């Protein structure tokens, strides 16, 4: 073997601890990169394939109800590849042994699956028969949540009658990868919501929709035509009871998956870069020290006739070794982790054709990234070799120039500190570059940790706001259809109900010039005690008599401010457009919506005095009453605000897993950084420290000097890292689509405390790990050598 290579390997071997620590940081970065990007690739390719193979439509036209003949009309439009009429109807459903009411979405499918749009993937059983026997295909996640099997019976309540339907099999559709009823629902609730597929004709009969459809889904010859054909459809069906034409992006599952993938991709690039950046900083510091320590050896090599380039490459070799070792290990770990990560998604998503593949391109890019990062760091450190003249290199380094630093001149108290502290600050000043790099690395570690932990804070605050202060009702009753407002008085008659308020929630299109946004507008009674609204300063506010309140995010995307006028158009009655004045902005973290006085909302609907929900507070000990309520006519569901929290927490599991992984990795990184800087500063000042020991300083006193330095740099790192973390966190939160959920930007003190405690912990650990270097220092040996 080339003798220089041999030297590299032996050097690395004799400083194992340090190299292992840097390699670890690189491994973490590359593992994360491989795992996340491979999961991204696997998921995104599988989903793309699934959408195409199973023919996800491009446009979804919703009607109140319309003659089936419009399907042919849609098909005739130029650019349309296929159109399919269907019924989509939500009804309540009961399951023996399950107390809560279930929202069942019935979707009609063609008699043959082969050429269907939204082709079903049959996980088990047979395709729908078109009769009661083997009638229904049911969503896989729902069947799994309830342990249902092919042949089990379902009891939906259709047109007020309880009906028995036998399950023909387990299926999934590309339209419901993420099974939520609408984009209003953030989290799938696989116990209380399901999709049931029936044969089209059979469903028409069952629901009394003979010859009718209420949705036409359209697949285009070219996706690029989406906008154009959407307009054509809107024009063509204007007078056929059209509610809206939605694109894929408006479709809940598609949108959620898109967001999920975008998030995954962003994460796959951002976090690993931070780890690689820090890894390369540590390598840089390590090599600077190595080159300084081996000056004499460099001089000898030069004297022996090695070219500077050869020597430069020799030192570069250390960095490349770290880069290769780290990226290959990280690649292997990444492959392993991406498998479990991708499979984890299956718990939440219906992706039947998931292909977990190893993407060589990802691995190769990972290796290249790692080698480039480490290589640049190595080159920068090694290039100081070029400045060394051989004769000069053989001589010891010029002695360090001691001086007071400007801090002592500006802040006289610094000059009066205990000597060991004065020494600490001067050393930090003396090694400005290293101090700065270490500070930066610790700040990034802290920042990373805070940015990820603060997501938990945000979610906690979100729940507190949404369910603590804002919503003080016990249950929300959703009616099966619009009911007369008089029902509130009827409900008020019940002894068990202590207070009741009407709620109307309807989808509207809000327009400001070319900007428009479809959202749910909530009508609330003025002075509501059960549904609280808060202005942007966090003060309680009320809906105005006339006009609308918008959430900040919604106002932003519409480009309006209080005092502006917007157009309000009911999605149920496109022709009823009217102007409303934006009266103010409110905080409302779940979903972006508008709020109006219930009376004026109902007037905007141009439809009698109807509402579709009610909020109630019940008297103590009336739990049994809730069951009674659920069984009442018109009642679709009775939900507690807590149900959402429960649902959310389940979904949060995946987030916790990420948070856990990133926090753990940040800790390893933080430890690696401090461990390395500690080691470097001990080795660099061996002689200084040895002479202190000889003068009678104990091991602990010597360690204290090193410890002080770590403490000081870490405290500075914390101070920089805390706001930095908040900043990174704000970026992550910004990235969250606001119409899904507006996360509040908040960092609780406990998060800062956790970050500080973690830093303290790894400072102490690094110190303990290095204590041996101090206690085992051979004083005689150190003092013998000149350098």
């Amino acid at each position, binding site marked *: 073997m080339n003798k220089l290579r041999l030297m590299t390997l032996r050097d690395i071997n004799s400083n194992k601890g340090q190299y292992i620590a840097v390699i670890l940081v690189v491994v973490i970065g590359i593992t994360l990169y491989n795992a996340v990007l491979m999961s991204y690739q696997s998921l995104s390719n599988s989903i793309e394939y699934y959408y195409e193979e199973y023919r996800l439509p491009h446009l979804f036209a919703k009607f109140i109800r319309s003659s089936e003949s419009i399907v042919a009309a849609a098909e005739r439009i130029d650019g349309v590849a296929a159109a399919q009429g269907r019924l989509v109807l939500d009804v309540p459903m009961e399951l023996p042994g399950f107390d809560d009411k279930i929202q069942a979405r019935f979707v009609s499918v063609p008699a043959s699956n082969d050429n269907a749009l939204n082709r079903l993937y049959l996980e088990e059983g047979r395709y729908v028969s078109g009769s009661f026997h083997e009638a229904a295909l049911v969503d896989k996640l729902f069947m799994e949540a309830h342990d249902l099997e092919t042949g089990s019976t379902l009891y939906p309540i259709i047109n007020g009658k309880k009906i028995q339907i036998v399950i023909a099999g387990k299926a999934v559709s590309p339209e419901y990868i993420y099974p939520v009823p609408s984009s209003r629902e953030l989290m799938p609730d696989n116990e209380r919501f399901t999709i049931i597929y029936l044969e089209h004709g059979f469903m028409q009969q069952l629901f009394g929709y003979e010859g009718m459809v209420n949705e036409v889904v359209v697949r285009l010859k070219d996706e690029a035509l989406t906008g154009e054909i959407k307009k054509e459809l809107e024009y063509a069906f204007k007078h056929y009871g059209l509610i809206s034409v939605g694109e894929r992006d408006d479709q809940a599952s598609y949108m959620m998956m898109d967001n999920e993938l975008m998030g995954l991709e962003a994460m796959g690039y951002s976090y690993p870069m931070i780890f690689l950046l820090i890894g390369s900083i540590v390598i840089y510091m390590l090599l600077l020290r190595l080159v300084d320590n081996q000056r004499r050896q460099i001089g000898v090599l030069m004297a022996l006739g090695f070219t500077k380039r050869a020597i430069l490459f020799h030192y570069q070799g250390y960095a490349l070794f770290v880069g290769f070792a780290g990226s290959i290990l990280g690649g292997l770990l990444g492959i392993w982790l991406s498998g479990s990560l991708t499979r984890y998604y299956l718990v939440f998503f219906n992706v039947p054709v998931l292909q977990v593949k190893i993407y060589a391109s990802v691995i190769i890019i990972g290796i290249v990234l790692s080698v480039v990062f480490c290589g640049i760091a190595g080159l920068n450190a090694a290039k100081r070799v070029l400045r060394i003249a051989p004769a000069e290199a053989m001589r010891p380094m010029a*002695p360090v120039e001691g001086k007071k630093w400007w801090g002592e001149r500006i802040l006289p108290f610094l000059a009066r500190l205990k000597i060991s502290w004065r020494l600490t600050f001067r050393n930090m000043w003396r090694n400005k570059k290293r101090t700065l790099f270490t500070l930066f690395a610790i700040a990034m570690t802290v920042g990373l940790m805070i940015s990820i932990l603060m997501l938990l804070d945000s979610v906690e605050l979100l729940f507190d706001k949404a369910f603590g202060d804002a919503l003080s009702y016990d249950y929300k009753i959703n009616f099966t259809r619009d009911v007369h407002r008089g029902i509130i008085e009827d409900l008020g008659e019940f002894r068990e109900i202590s207070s009741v308020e009407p709620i109307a929630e309807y989808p509207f299109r809000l327009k400001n010039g070319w900007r428009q946004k479809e959202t749910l507008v909530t009508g609330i009674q003025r002075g509501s005690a059960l549904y609280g609204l808060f202005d942007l300063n966090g003060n309680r506010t009320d809906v105005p008599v006339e006009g609308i309140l918008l959430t900040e995010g919604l106002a932003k995307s519409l480009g309006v401010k209080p005092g502006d006028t917007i157009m309000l158009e009911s999605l149920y009655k496109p022709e009823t457009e009217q102007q409303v004045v934006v009266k103010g902005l409110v905080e409302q973290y779940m979903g972006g919506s508008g709020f109006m006085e219930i009376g004026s909302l109902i007037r905007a609907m141009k439809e009698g005095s109807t509402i579709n929900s009610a909020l109630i507070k019940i008297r103590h000990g009336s739990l049994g009453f809730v069951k009674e309520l659920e069984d009442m006519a018109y009642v679709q569901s009775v939900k507690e605000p807590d149900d959402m929290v429960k649902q959310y927490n389940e979904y949060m599991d995946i987030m916790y897993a990420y948070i856990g992984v990133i926090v753990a990795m940040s800790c390893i990184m933080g430890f690696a950084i401090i461990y390395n800087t500690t080691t470097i500063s001990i080795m660099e000042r061996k002689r200084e420290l040895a002479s202190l020991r*000889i*003068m*009678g*300083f*104990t091991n602990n006193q010597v360690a204290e000097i090193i410890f002080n330095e770590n403490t000081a740099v870490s405290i500075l790192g914390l101070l920089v890292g805390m706001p930095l973390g908040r900043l990174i966190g704000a970026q992550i939160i910004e990235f969250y689509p606001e119409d899904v959920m507006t996360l509040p930007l908040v960092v609780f003190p406990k998060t800062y405390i956790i970050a500080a405690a973690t830093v303290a912990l790894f400072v102490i650990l690094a110190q303990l790990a290095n204590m041996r270097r101090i206690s085992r220092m051979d004083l*005689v040996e150190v003092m013998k050598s000149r350098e």
Partner: protein
Amino acid sequence: MERVLISTKDLSKIYHMGEVSVEALRDANLDIYEGEFVVILGPSGSGKSTLLNIIGGMDTPTLGKVFFRDKELGDLDDNGLTRYRRENIGFIFQFYNLLPNLTARENLELVTDMSSDPLDVMEVLDKVGLKERADHFPSQLSGGEQQRVAVARAVAKNPEMLLCDEPTGALDNTTGRVVLKVLKEINQSLGKTVLVITHNAAIAEMANRVLYLSNGRIADIRTIENPVDPERIEW
């Protein structure tokens, strides 16, 4: 000059370097008295540094014993040896070993801060003739001045004995003489025992006693009745 400060009994030190054993010190028996100025003379490799390190509690003998007054150093653990060095021994090295980041005064304070009975820092600096340069950093001082700061630092904690390893080794003879004068002055006015090891025979003339070391053995001990004034030493 009767009380024995350091006494060694059959001291041997064997270094094992791979398969080779080197006997650095063989059966060294030696008494050093309080207030004495002793020079240990010998070529390099004769074992003088080993002897100094063992006496100073920086190294342990393979065989034999070292007593400081009636305390046996072999009975002390690492902490005990550290305390022994802190309280009783002042080291002076060939290459000064000042902390570059501390001024002359601060280098002394570093030590006095942790000793139980230190001398006044400025008085000691005055004694080595560097009172005016107290606030200079090592890099602003000449080699001789740095070595005087090192001497002052060794003295400031008020130890019983100064152990000097080639204190003039890195200095020219003019500056070297100044350092030797300072050592003699401290020996006489403060009554500190001084042990100097050197290969420079000329220095031996200023001692009360000279030990000759050769191949790890004490070859000869010579008492000098009229030590020469360091001013008059030439090399």
